[in-house]
């Protein structure tokens, strides 16, 4: 057992034996998962227990996070929606119409755009634009002793640093997912319209509405909220959880992005079970 940056890790200098190498990495993934889950539980507990504490100081931070990770990303999401609308939806509509399968349009849109692409692309975009900035901001604050300064003022760093990001990112990813999906569907139809596809708006949106069930709303909403929580927890964990030196900031940023992507995709795959069980 070795400790790297205060983390438990199984390390081996010789990678000759593949099973041992795989075993080590599996154990390390287990350690990482355990630490992240512990941090998530601590953060959620603080969120619940201190919901009404120090609102004068924490409230503005939540608003600031909502602006940073939500409002300011709206132009980027319009661009992404236009591109995805062209690449995926426009082409799908065009091909389904050519083969006379317009009847499946609603189902395809719901599965591809609403259930899968919407939440995943929104989460990835928020991760790259805001998650990385979070890790850099927090790890720099940690390296410069700001966390200790807060603790010495009797301020809980989880409450002050993590809770606003947790709330802000969960609400931002949720809102941006809804915004993004609506925009993709609109742009998708717009591209189809410019290609002279014989599809009326009423028929297009009617099919999508008919293919949507209550479970889709529930799953997409939950998925987006959980994705926001994952981005907040993983990035805050890597920025804050351990004492850091400034030169470690790039290392923890790369690690946080990698682990966030893995966690997002694993949770996304787990949501598939909801439909399979049903």
């Amino acid at each position, binding site marked *: 057992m070795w400790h790297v940056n205060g983390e438990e890790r199984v390390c081996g200098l010789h990678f000759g034996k593949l099973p041992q190498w795989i075993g080590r990495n599996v154990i390390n993934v287990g350690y990482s998962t355990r630490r992240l889950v512990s941090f998530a539980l601590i953060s959620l507990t603080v969120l619940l227990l201190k919901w009404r504490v*120090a609102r*004068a100081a924490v409230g503005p931070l939540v608003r600031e996070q909502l602006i940073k990770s939500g409002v300011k990303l709206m132009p980027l999401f319009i661009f992404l929606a236009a591109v995805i609308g062209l690449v995926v939806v426009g082409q799908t509509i065009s091909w389904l119409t050519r083969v006379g399968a317009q009847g499946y349009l609603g189902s395809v849109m719901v599965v591809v755009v609403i259930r899968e692409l919407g939440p995943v692309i929104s989460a990835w975009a928020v991760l790259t634009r805001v998650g990385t900035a979070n890790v850099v901001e927090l790890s720099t*604050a940690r390296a410069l002793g*700001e966390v*200790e*300064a807060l603790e*010495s*003022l*009797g*301020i809980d760093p989880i409450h002050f640093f993590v809770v606003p990001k947790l709330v802000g990112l969960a609400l931002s990813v949720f809102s941006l997912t809804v915004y993004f999906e609506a925009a993709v569907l609109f742009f998708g139809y717009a591209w189809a319209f410019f290609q002279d596809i014989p599809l009326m708006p009423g028929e297009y949106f009617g099919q999508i509405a008919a293919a949507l069930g209550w479970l889709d709303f529930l799953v997409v909403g939950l998925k987006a909220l959980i994705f926001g929580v994952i981005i907040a927890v993983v990035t805050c964990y890597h920025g804050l959880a351990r004492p850091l030196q400034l030169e470690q900031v790039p290392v923890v940023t790369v690690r946080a992005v990698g682990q966030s992507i893995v966690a997002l995709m694993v949770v996304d795959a787990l949501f598939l079970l909801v439909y399979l069980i049903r």
Partner: protein
Amino acid sequence: MSADSKPVLKLQRTAIGSLLEPERVILYCDEWLVYKGEFWVVGGLSGSGKSDFLRFLGGLFPPVTGKYEFLGELMPIIDDRRLPIRLKLAFIPEDGGLLARFTVLENVMLPCRYHLGMSEIKAKNRAMELLDLVGCASLGPAFPRHLRFEQRRRVAIARALALDPEVLLIDCPLRGLDPVQTQWWLHLLWRLNQGQSKVSTSSITLIVSTTSLSPWGKKGYKFAMLEEGKFKLIGDWDSIAGTSDTGVQVLL
């Protein structure tokens, strides 16, 4: 000190780690009692563990073994129930520990907004009063990165005073200062200790660290030092003047 008065701060057979490695013992203190109104100067060379010692006293990490009590409560205090006691202790790191993304005014307002739930206007008034005390009233809109080193430390003491602490811990307040700044700090700290400052009429117990004992002569301070991993009590200035301890003489 009267026999019935209780110490505000008490260390007993305490082994102390460091912030980066809280489990690895770097200092040992057999016993140290600090009473209300005292002004302690803890000397030590660079690398002797002064910063970690003060961080430990500030409750940032627990002792490896032994006991550390503040106002009769075991430290560190992390539960909200005992938080009001914890807030009677303030710690100022050497670089001030200001939050980089907040302005000077917001930094000083923060404890009032967070702990007292003060409205923005009230917190702003309180912060301006404190900034005025340390001669930084005009720096309110500036960010910490725009301040000089000694200005950051002045703002840090303003922030630390926001909650009227009973005990103030300051890591190397005189390091890197010119003679004028040094005199300003000595004067301010003495007035705070004597309860003669504009913002507080009650006496504040002070513990400061230093690499040089000489600026602290004459005024009734108490001295201790960190040497070879041990906390040693020295006594008052007369004890220092009469000592043949080479460790103490190096710090003079």
